[in-house]
C-alpha cells in the first residue's frame, strides 16, 4: 500500500495543528459558529442529535493492521468502544468530544491517517473496488490512480467551496463494486483497441432527492490525462453549478440542465485550452511510480499445492458454507479473498467493536499481509489469505462473531445509522434492520434466495443507497410515526438502475412482513435459480404491488 513520505506526513501533521487552532478559536469565541461549521465539516466533524460524529478517511478503503489497531484504540480512548464503517469505505465515531477531536486527529496522523475532506462541499474520499489488485477479472489495479486522485484532491485550494459535495469512484474491471454510476464522477479503467489503458469517464450520477445514473462524458481518457481532465470537470462545476438551492447544487443537476453533450463540450473546451498540457499531465514515469506502491505481494508459490479443503469441510459444515458465501476466487493460485461480515445477527450493520477491530488487525497480520479493505457494502476484506489458512481464520472470526456466512444475501444489508445517530434522519433504521434479521434468521433459506441486495436509508438523503438496492427501504416521518417506503429493481452494479416505488409507505411494525411478502412473490415467479434482480426485470412491479397491498384493501 501507499506509505507516506516526509511531505505527506508534514501535510497531515500541519493540518492537525491548523484544525487545533480552528477549534481553539471557536471555543474561545473568536471564530463564528457558521464559519467553524464549514471548517469542521471539511475535517469530517458533524454535530449530530446526541453528540458530534467524526468521520475518518480510509483512502479507497485500504488500511494496514497498524492503522486498524489505531482506529480500535481511538474508539476505546475517545469513544464508546465501537465504530461504524460507511458505504464510502470510511469509518465513523459517534461519540467523540468536539474539544478532543484535534487529539484524535494527532493520533490518526501518527499512523498516516486523517479526516481531511470526509465531509463538506469539497472532493471527498475516492472509493474503489475492495478486491483491487487481487480479483481475476481486473483489467488493471485501480489503486495507483486512486492515490493520484487522493493527492491531487487533498486540500485543493480551488475546490474546497464547491456548490456541493463531490464524490469520485473508480473501478478496475467490468464488475462494479464501487457504485461508480451513482457518483459525481465514475471512472472505469478500460483498454482501448490499441491496448492502451485509460478511463471511461461518467459524470452526474448520484442518489439523494434526485437519484440519477451517471452518463458517459468521455469514452476513453488516456490515463496520463486523469488529473487534467478531472481538474477541468471540477472547474466547470465550480463556476456553473447551482448555488441558490442546496438540493439542486450537485453536478448531476448541472448535467441534467445542460444536457450531457453541452456539459462534455464545456469540459472539453476547458481541458484542451487550459489544463491538458499543464503540469497536471502525468508522464508514464509518474504513473509507474504510483504503480510501484501497489506491486503484487510476495505470494508463496507453494500455496498452490495446498488447496484441498476436504478434511476441513468434514470437520465443519458451517465452515464449508462460510467458504462458499464469504470467500472469493483470487487471481493467484492457492489464495482466496475473504469477506469479513459486519452484518451479524441482530446487531447494527457495519459496526465493529474495538475488540473486533483489534482481532481483525491481528488476523490480517497473521494471515493476509497486514492489510485490510473496507467495502461499499460495509464489510471488511482480507484480500490475500492462503487457502490452507482458511479454517484457522474462520475459527478465529467465528469466535469474534465475524463469520456470519451471509455475504450477498438479504441480511448483508446496507444501512445508514438512522434517527438515533444522525441529525438528518427522519426515521429509525437499526431497529428495522433487526426486525428483518429476526424474520430471516434461517440461513439455509437465505442461501436458497440467492443474491439480494437490501438497502435502507433513514431519510431522503439516501446514505443507505435505498434507490439502488434490489429491495430499497426509505424511512419517512408522518406526524411522529415512522413509515417505510419500498422500492424494487434498483442496482448499483454494472447494470445500475434506480428502483421504483411500489406504493404507499408501510407502518414500521409491518416492514419485515412486507419484505417477506416481496420475497414470496419472487419465489413464486422464480424460474430455477433465477436471481431476484432478473425476476424483477422479467415480471415488473405489478405482481409485487398486488400482493403487498392486497390485505390492506
Amino acid at each position, binding site marked *: 500500500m501507499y506509505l507516506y513520505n516526509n511531505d505527506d506526513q508534514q*501535510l497531515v501533521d*500541519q493540518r492537525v495543528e491548523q484544525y487545533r487552532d480552528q477549534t481553539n478559536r471557536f471555543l474561545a469565541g473568536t471564530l463564528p459558529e457558521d464559519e467553524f461549521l464549514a471548517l469542521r465539516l471539511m475535517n469530517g466533524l458533524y454535530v449530530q442529535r446526541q453528540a458530534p460524529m467524526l468521520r475518518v478517511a480510509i483512502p479507497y478503503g485500504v488500511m494496514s493492521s497498524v492503522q486498524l489497531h489505531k482506529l480500535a484504540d481511538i474508539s476505546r480512548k475517545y469513544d464508546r468502544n465501537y465504530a461504524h464503517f460507511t458505504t464510502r469505505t470510511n469509518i465513523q465515531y459517534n461519540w467523540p468530544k468536539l474539544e478532543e477531536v484535534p487529539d484524535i486527529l494527532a493520533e490518526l496522523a501518527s499512523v498516516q491517517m486523517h479526516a481531511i475532506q470526509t465531509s463538506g462541499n469539497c472532493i471527498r474520499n475516492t472509493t474503489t473496488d475492495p478486491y483491487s489488485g487481487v480479483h481475476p477479472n481486473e483489467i488493471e489495479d485501480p489503486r495507483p490512480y486512486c492515490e493520484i486522485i487522493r493527492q491531487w484532491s487533498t486540500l485543493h485550494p480551488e475546490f474546497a467551496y464547491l456548490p456541493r459535495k463531490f464524490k469520485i469512484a473508480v473501478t478496475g474491471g467490468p464488475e462494479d463494486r464501487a457504485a461508480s454510476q451513482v457518483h459525481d464522477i465514475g471512472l472505469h479503467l478500460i483498454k482501448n483497441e490499441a491496448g492502451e489503458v485509460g478511463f471511461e469517464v461518467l459524470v452526474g450520477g448520484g442518489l439523494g432527492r434526485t437519484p440519477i445514473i451517471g452518463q458517459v462524458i468521455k469514452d476513453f481518457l488516456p490515463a496520463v490525462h486523469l488529473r487534467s481532465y478531472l481538474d477541468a470537470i471540477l472547474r466547470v462545476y465550480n463556476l456553473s453549478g447551482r*448555488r441558490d438551492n442546496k438540493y439542486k447544487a450537485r453536478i448531476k443537476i448541472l448535467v441534467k440542465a445542460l444536457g450531457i453533450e453541452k456539459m462534455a463540450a464545456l469540459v472539453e473546451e476547458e481541458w484542451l485550452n487550459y489544463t491538458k498540457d499543464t503540469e497536471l499531465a502525468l508522464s508514464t514515469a509518474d504513473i509507474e511510480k504510483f504503480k510501484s506502491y501497489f506491486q503484487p505481494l510476495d505470494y508463496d508459490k507453494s500455496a498452490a499445492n495446498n488447496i484441498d479443503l476436504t478434511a476441513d469441510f468434514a470437520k465443519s459444515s458451517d465452515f464449508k458454507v462460510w467458504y462458499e458465501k464469504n470467500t472469493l476466487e483470487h487471481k493467484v493460485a492457492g489464495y482466496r479473498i475473504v469477506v469479513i461480515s459486519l452484518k451479524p445477527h441482530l446487531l447494527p450493520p457495519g459496526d465493529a467493536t474495538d475488540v473486533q477491530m483489534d482481532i481483525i488487525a491481528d488476523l490480517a497480520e497473521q494471515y493476509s499481509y497486514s492489510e485490510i479493505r473496507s467495502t461499499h457494502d460495509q464489510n471488511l476484506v482480507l484480500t490475500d489469505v492462503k487457502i490452507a489458512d482458511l479454517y484457522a481464520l474462520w475459527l478465529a472470526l467465528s469466535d469474534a462473531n465475524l463469520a456470519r456466512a451471509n455475504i450477498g444475501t438479504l441480511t448483508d444489508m446496507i444501512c445508514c445509522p438512522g434517527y438515533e445517530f444522525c441529525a438528518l434522519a427522519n426515521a429509525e433504521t437499526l431497529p428495522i434492520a433487526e426486525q428483518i434479521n429476526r424474520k430471516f434468521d434461517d440461513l439455509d433459506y437465505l442461501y436458497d434466495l440467492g443474491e439480494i441486495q437490501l438497502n435502507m436509508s433513514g431519510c431522503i438523503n439516501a446514505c443507505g443507497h435505498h434507490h439502488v438496492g434490489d429491495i430499497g427501504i426509505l424511512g419517512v416521518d408522518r406526524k411522529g410515526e415512522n413509515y417505510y417506503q419500498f422500492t424494487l429493481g434498483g442496482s448499483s452494479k454494472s447494470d445500475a438502475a434506480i428502483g421504483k416505488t411500489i406504493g404507499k409507505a408501510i407502518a414500521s411494525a409491518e416492514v419485515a412482513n412486507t419484505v417477506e411478502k416481496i420475497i414470496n412473490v419472487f419465489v413464486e415467479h422464480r424460474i430455477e435459480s433465477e436471481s431476484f434482480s432478473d425476476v424483477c426485470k422479467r415480471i415488473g412491479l405489478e405482481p409485487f404491488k398486488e400482493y403487498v397491498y392486497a390485505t390492506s384493501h
Partner: protein
Amino acid sequence: MPLLINGKVVVDSWLAVDSEKLVADQQEQLDAINQANVPVILPLAIYVQCQDQLKLDVTKVGVKVVGDDDLSSLLAVLDSVALVAIDFPVLRDGRGFSIARSVARTGFKGEVRATGDVGFDRLDYMHRSGFNSFLISDDLFTENTVKAFTEIDFNYQPTHQRSA
C-alpha cells in the same frame, strides 16, 4: 479595511466607484472619473459598456467581478486593466477561487484582489488560486493574519503553487 499584499498591509490607492451613482448618471460620473485621474475600480459590466469613454491609463483601471458575471467578458478585457477585484459575497460561494485561477493562468500581471468574505481560514487557498491582494474587514484582521499563508507548507497541486 486593511489591504494585504505580499504579507504586508499597504495603503489602498484604488477608488471603488459607487455603481448606483454610475448607473444613475453615467456621463457625469465618467467625466468626474476622467478628471480626477485616480485609479478606479468599476463593476465589470459597466466597464465593458463604457470602456471607450474612459480616458484613464491602463494602470489606473480596475474591474470588480462577481460570480454571476460572464467570465469570457472578463478575460477579454484583461489587457486593458491593472486590477481585478473578485468578490466573495458569502462563505459558501467558492466561485471566486475558479475566477481567480482563470485570470491568473492567462499570465495576467496586475493585482488580483479578494474582496467580501475574506477570512483567515481561506487566505492561503485564495493565494494559491491566484489572488495576490486581500481586502480584509477590520473585525477579521489581526496581527496573526499573515500566518495564514504558512500554516501548511507542502501541497499536491502543481498548478496551484504559492507565488512569490
